[in-house]
């Protein structure tokens, strides 16, 4: 596995036009080695999603390099799979057709893509729901379909933009476990954006903490927790100690209550 090395340096992205333009990300550098699970942790509005948008190729930087396996990112590509927070499955396609989409646009014959899509649905435990429409599935199941849909392209990097943020706490824990299980079998580089400290600590090999906007990396935390990781991890002393460290980084002043709006 030598695919999926990420190298970003001096990244600068401006969003908006004219007077409303703002520096979303400025002077950001990071690197990930192939197969690494990287979590980017930061306050809301710090430019985490912008960073991911640049990696996916949907946003053009005004300065800096974004390299994947030494190649400059110039636009979206199936080798860089992107999973959003919610509701980005095609509502008019069945679960199976959603998963098979990547193969369809590449011109893979129907029977072959059906077979491959079923394999991936099996991987995320949804093979019985192949014929359902996304709206018939729960939020957690929809995110599993998202993951399967991206993985069918054998991506070098998996880009996840707060993929579990809209789920309830129980489902979120299950999904984190499932993601780790899947990742153990399909060892792709993961860049996982979150504002949830527990989630970052539970999932990552390494956490990068971002500053307020304009975002840049202010801290790097290497996690040595052994894998496979289980839910008990979150109650260990090391975990709690690192969590306190992250809290201090994210809330330098006495912590203000964080409001989260369900959408």
């Amino acid at each position, binding site marked *: 596995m030598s695919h999926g090395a990420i190298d970003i340096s001096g990244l600068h992205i401006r969003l908006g036009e004219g007077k409303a333009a703002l520096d979303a990300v400025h002077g950001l550098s990071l690197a990930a080695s192939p197969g690494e699970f990287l979590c980017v942790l930061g306050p809301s509005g710090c430019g985490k999603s912008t960073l991911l948008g640049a990696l*996916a*190729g*949907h946003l053009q930087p005004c300065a800096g390099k974004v390299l994947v396996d030494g190649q400059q990112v110039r*636009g*979206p*590509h*199936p080798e*860089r*799979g*992107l999973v*959003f927070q919610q*509701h*980005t499955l*095609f*509502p*008019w*396609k069945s679960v199976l057709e959603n998963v098979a*989409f*990547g193969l*369809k*646009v*590449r011109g893979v014959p129907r029977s072959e893509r059906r077979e491959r899509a079923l394999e991936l649905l099996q991987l995320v435990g949804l093979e019985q729901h192949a014929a359902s*429409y996304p*709206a*018939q599935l729960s939020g957690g199941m929809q995110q599993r379909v998202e993951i399967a*849909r*991206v993985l069918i*392209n054998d991506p070098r990097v998996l880009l996840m933009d707060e993929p579990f943020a809209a789920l309830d706490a129980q489902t979120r824990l299950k999904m984190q476990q499932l993601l780790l299980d899947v990742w153990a079998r399909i060892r792709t580089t993961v860049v996982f954006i979150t504002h949830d400290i527990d989630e970052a600590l539970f999932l990552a090999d390494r956490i990068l903490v971002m500053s307020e906007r304009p975002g840049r990396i202010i801290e790097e935390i290497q996690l040595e927790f052994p894998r496979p990781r289980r839910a008990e991890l979150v109650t260990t002393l090391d975990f709690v100690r690192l969590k306190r460290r992250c809290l201090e980084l994210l809330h330098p002043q006495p912590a203000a209550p964080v409001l989260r709006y369900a959408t």
Partner: protein
Amino acid sequence: MATLSPRLLRGLVRGASLAACVLAWHWASTRHIDFGVASFRNVPSPQETLQAAARLLQSPKLGTHLSASIGRVFAGYAVAAALGIALGLLIGRSRLLAAALLPPLEVLRPIPAVAWIPLAILMFPSSELSMIFITFIGALFPILLNTIHGVEGIDARLVASARSLGGRGGAVFANVILPGAAPSIVTGLSIGMGTAWFCLVTAEMISGQFGIGYYTWSSYIVQDYPDIIVGMLAIGVFGMGSSLLVRQAGNALMPWYFIGRKTA
């Protein structure tokens, strides 16, 4: 009292609503009620209308009237649907095309079909074509505007997802833009079908010896008042029926749309 299923209850209410309207009409017209601003003194009663309808049903002219009107409505509608959807998709996807095409369309949009009559007569070699043009004008704008609205309403993240998954121009269009705009397009097609019928009388005022709109208008000229109402109702029923057909056909093509709405 036996419990009614909600479905049956709604059906009964629908029937009662129609019956109440006919009853009110009957009352106002047989008593020649004068409300001051509007008078029912010269309005034919339901019975007279029914007799007129029966006469028309037995008359050999009915088929000719109907086929002439249906032919015009569908010809105008077909062109409006093709052009409205195609233009709507282009305008909805491209800001440049929107800037180029929308201003003239916005100016033309509020012009009622009646106002087009003189120009239509001047522009087209045959009166048949000018009538088709009027129904086309009626159907075009609802279809066009709903298509634009549908395309603009597509979640940008769906398009981003499709691109990230390897989709390019044509594939994104066929797999995301078209199905995403489909519910709105069906709404536009259904409304457009209604307005095409709506413009029929206007169109058939131009000329001709046949058509339901012509029949309605000429009944007024020859002071055959019950026939006016027969013509009006025929347009209403055909307009509603064909709108409904369009909607049903559209819905049959979008089973996912209702699943989404039921659970949402």
